[in-house]
């Protein structure tokens, strides 16, 4: 039979300062651990949300990113003519032949130039991305030097306010609208007319071709045909897969660095918990003796002290995850090393992160509490009672 839970819980309350300090150390580690996972989840969510499940993206074979890709007009026309491509209301294929380039634009406040992605989209560009909504001003008019800017860009870069003019590609462009792309990577882009961008940047080839499939189930057949076509040296990917791959390098870096740091920090927290629990055992030796004399077995004593360490960890987890949850209000931007452009995203708390951080905290509590609990359980009753 176990020692009542109230005994373990109230002993934590009885030594408030030690409990707060030890749980505080654990909370910090949980915060770092959860924040890193949230950063990774935010990055993935942003890039995954960029792709639509029934869209495909065609780029030059092995180019990896749209910036490095080139699809000439003939190749784009072949892609556009495939029977698997969905047709729009007027019978035209839902295809956007796009040009993607980087420009350096100064940030508001600091004036530091940072790479920003400019995307020239085709007529169906907006229809292909239903998550994109114009929230201020209006959409650019095809054939003009008008642009619209993503929400994150408008907030953080100079010259991107509504009605402002911005110079790149040897031209002045007027910002006529701002769009919200639902937290996707498009929020960090400037959009204009594809053909105008081709001319401005003196491009002969598109960067990519985005298209909607009439039936997403036909993707494999389409890819097999296009990739086997000797006229084409193209990669055909589902749009979502393409953007998932874009997040891979950075996601791996954040995960490895963050988890490594968390594990190193956790050693400190576990030693803190261990010292606290050893002190608890030393201070309550006579109580342990009395409990054993009353008939509580060694296992019950071990469980009671282990439970105390786990409650300590649970407290640390609750505080740590609460602070981490507050980080969701923070938006950060960084260079996406795959596209070399600015990417804004938010810390995203998922159910998986909550569970992982809880298990991490409990593991810290278990490791920190196990040896002191074993020591408590191994005390000889007569020796323990003499400590009274």
């Amino acid at each position: 039979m176990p020692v009542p839970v109230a005994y373990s819980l109230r002993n934590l309350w009885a030594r408030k300062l030690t409990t707060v300090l030890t749980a505080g150390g654990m909370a910090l580690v949980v915060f770092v651990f959860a924040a890193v996972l949230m950063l990774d989840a935010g990055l993935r969510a942003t890039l995954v949300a960029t792709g639509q499940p029934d869209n495909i993206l065609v780029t030059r074979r092995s180019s990896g990113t749209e910036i490095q890709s080139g699809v000439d007009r003939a190749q784009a026309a072949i892609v556009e003519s495939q029977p698997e491509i969905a047709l729009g209301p007027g019978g035209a294929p839902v295809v956007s032949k796009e040009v993607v380039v980087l420009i350096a634009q100064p940030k508001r406040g600091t004036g530091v130039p940072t790479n920003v992605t400019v995307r020239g989209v085709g007529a169906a560009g907006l229809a292909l991305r239903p998550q994109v909504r114009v929230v201020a001003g209006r959409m650019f008019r095809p054939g003009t030097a008008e642009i619209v800017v993503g929400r994150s860009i408008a907030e953080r870069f100079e010259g991107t306010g509504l009605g402002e003019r911005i110079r790149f590609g040897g031209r002045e462009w007027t910002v006529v609208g701002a769009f919200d792309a639902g937290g996707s990577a498009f929020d960090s882009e400037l959009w204009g007319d594809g053909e105008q961008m081709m001319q401005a940047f003196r491009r002969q080839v598109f960067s990519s071709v985005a298209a909607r499939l009439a039936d997403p189930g036909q993707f494999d057949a389409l890819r097999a045909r296009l990739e086997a076509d000797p006229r084409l040296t193209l990669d055909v990917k589902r749009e979502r897969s393409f953007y998932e791959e874009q997040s891979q390098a950075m996601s791996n870096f954040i995960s490895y660095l963050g988890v490594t740091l968390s594990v190193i920090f956790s050693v400190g927290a576990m030693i803190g918990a261990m010292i606290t629990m050893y002190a608890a055992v030393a201070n309550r030796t006579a109580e342990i003796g009395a409990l054993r004399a009353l008939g509580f077995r060694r296992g019950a004593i071990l469980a009671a002290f282990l439970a105390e360490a786990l409650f300590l960890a649970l407290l640390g987890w609750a505080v740590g995850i609460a602070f981490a949850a507050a980080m969701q209000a923070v938006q950060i931007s960084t260079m996406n090393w795959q596209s070399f452009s600015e990417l804004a995203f938010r810390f995203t708390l998922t159910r998986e992160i909550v569970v992982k951080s809880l298990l991490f905290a409990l593991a810290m509590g278990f490791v920190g509490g196990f040896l002191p609990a074993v020591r408590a359980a191994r005390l000889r009753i007569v020796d323990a009672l003499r400590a009274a």
Partner: protein
Amino acid sequence: MHAAERPAPALIRIRNLAKSYRRGGQVVPVLTDITLDVRAGDFLGLMGPSGSGKSTLLNLIAGIDKPDAGEILFDGVDITRLGERELADWRAGTVGFVFQFYNLMPVLTAYENVELPLTLTRLSRRERRAHVEAALALVGLSERMAHYPAELSGGQQQRVAIARAIISDPRLIVADEPTGDLDRHSAAEVLALMDRLNTDLGKTIVMVTHDRRAAERAHAIMYLDKGELSTAADVHERSVR
């Protein structure tokens, strides 16, 4: 130890008990060849100078220490042969402990302290409550159930400890200097209570004490000196119900 007209059978039979401790590489004998019978319903006082082995003998009888040699038969069962778990279960069901410094759990209320041994049983919460309330009423602390040990006087804490000792209705109560930390008035209350446990509830009590007044409550007093049970003296005899 009853020299009464109706001798009860021996509840505890101790035969050739020996115990020694190792101190600084030397073996120091504490008890040598102790043989003793304690009958059901006895109130036995163990006296002797410090270091004479009184508490060691009490610990062995209570099953919280193991002898080097000899046997302790409790109702026919040799408890020296019981394993760790069996001994814990035996203690939980058979022995009530009263310590000199009460050994209550500071973070539990008087009620919860008394309830503690019952958490080892299969009694329901309602049944436990009935038992705890009865035990606290018996020791006169019904009004102090919700108090923590730090909010009680020494005498009250020892009465809570006595309530805890009897809560699981053990056949044997072992008391190690139960009045050693109490003023005269509180000590008298505790001894009166122990007396009631013996006379009214028929509990067998083995009590270690330095206090002559405490020992006078016992039916019989055994003296331990240099590890040997030297004499037994009936202090006063009582008729047993």
